[in-house]
């Protein structure tokens, strides 16, 4: 059974990924370098990284805020709001993109049009990455002992000071784990962006859309080269999280 599982994993996951790496270096390191330093590819990768960092930062702030309200506040309909958080995970990404265009597209009923803009790309990424930080922080916040906060408050510390000095340090590992997942997702996202970005090279084109357009025009070597860079970023995130989680566990 073990052998069969490994064989299956090799056929489905490893061989295809190996094919991407092999293809990217098929023309030698020189050609690989040319492909990843092509100005349009560089612009797409730079925009992807910048927008992913911005989105992950907003996720960190809003994720903690939403988790806080869901754990510490009480209001009617809270269970429903809590269930809503997972919707971006369940909703197909193409529907997410269409959804945002219906409200914030060129026929916007509220007069906000982010179609074909960098803000539109960020909005789509905020939508699909919303649950990561909330769901990472929520359980930690729930199990947090409130005595330290009460002690700080009774000693005259204000709510902001208490949050910064007592709550935030306890949440930090969860926030970082959530942010890393959100960032990784944002770097590779395709479906939610494809309708809203308009895919304008040097402006709203992200790396995944760049790879897609290269596949469509049969330049698979260039597509593979940029894919390898994307995979390298994913690996660093993935290994980074598990290494760092193990270290935190030991400490």
């Amino acid at each position, binding site marked *: 059974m073990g052998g069969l599982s490994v064989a299956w994993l090799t056929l489905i996951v490893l061989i295809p990924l190996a094919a991407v790496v092999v293809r990217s270096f098929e023309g030698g390191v020189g050609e690989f370098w040319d492909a990843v330093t092509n100005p349009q590819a560089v612009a797409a990768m730079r925009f992807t990284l910048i927008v992913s960092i911005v989105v992950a930062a907003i996720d960190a702030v809003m994720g903690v805020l939403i988790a806080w309200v869901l754990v510490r506040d009480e209001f009617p309909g809270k269970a429903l709001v809590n269930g809503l958080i997972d919707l971006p995970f369940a909703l197909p990404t193409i529907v997410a993109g269409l*959804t945002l265009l219906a409200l914030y597209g060129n026929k916007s009923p509220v007069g906000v049009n982010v179609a074909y803009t960098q803000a539109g790309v960020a909005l789509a990424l905020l939508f699909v990455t919303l649950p990561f930080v909330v769901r990472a922080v929520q359980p930690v916040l729930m199990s947090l002992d409130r005595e330290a906060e009460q002690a700080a408050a009774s000693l005259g510390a204000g709510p902001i000071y208490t949050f910064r000095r007592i709550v935030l340090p306890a949440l930090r590992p969860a926030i970082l784990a959530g942010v890393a997942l959100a960032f990784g997702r944002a770097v590779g996202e395709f479906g939610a962006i494809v309708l809203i970005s308009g895919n304008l090279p040097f402006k709203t084109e992200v790396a995944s859309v760049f790879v897609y357009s290269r596949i469509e025009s049969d330049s698979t070597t260039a597509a593979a080269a940029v894919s390898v860079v994307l995979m390298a970023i994913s690996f660093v995130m993935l290994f980074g999280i598990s290494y760092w989680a193990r270290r935190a566990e030991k400490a």
Partner: protein
Amino acid sequence: MTAGRLSLRVVALGYLALLLVVPIGMVFYRALENGIGPAWDAVTTPPAQHAFYLTCVIALIAVPLNAVFGVACAWLLARYEFKGKRLLDTIIDLPFAISPVVVGLALILVWGREGWFASTSVIFSTPGMILATIFVSLPFVVREVEPVLREEGIDQEQAAATLGANAFQILRRITLPTIRWGLTYGIILSTARALGEFGAVAIVSGKISGRTETLTLYVEDRFQSLDLAGAYAAALLLALIAVAVLALMTILQRKHKDH
């Protein structure tokens, strides 16, 4: 109640409203603004019906395969110590970390006309779309079942073995009932992902209308053809499936906790 608490609540709920609730409400409104009749007509055209059928076929093949592999892999990770276990653990998570576009490209490079296992019946047809779907939804069952197996331990399995049960009997009588809930969640999540995948399937399918179009590809096709009514109607159908999945998970988890 303090003003600070109220303002936090307003900011959190306002953010969720502007990002999630109002946009999704808008799709429902757009899909149904001319009544249910036109929306129904839009999702029952022959290409739409075929897209629905193909989406179901792909999920019906990919999800059971993921379930069997997922249980086997979870078993391996929870019950055995071996060299390279951590590596296996990481590889299983890879599909979550890799862009769907890269998955599509990878499958073309292996199964395409000039690929390593060159074939004419995989890419631009159903087998390729199934492979793409298996890839992206692979980790769900493993990740749900493994912690359950680990937590339950091996006492019952060992007792059954001592009493003379064979491996198959142990699997059917002890292990499967133990992992029932984890397996159910894994299958539900895997199904939702299979029905909703876009990028990887878009690349390997060639997007041939009425032949290799799934529901998500149909949404894009209708949007790009400026048939917004059709796009909104199909999106509504997919959104309803997503909401049903969430509701099912919530109900099952509540039931599970009560036991």
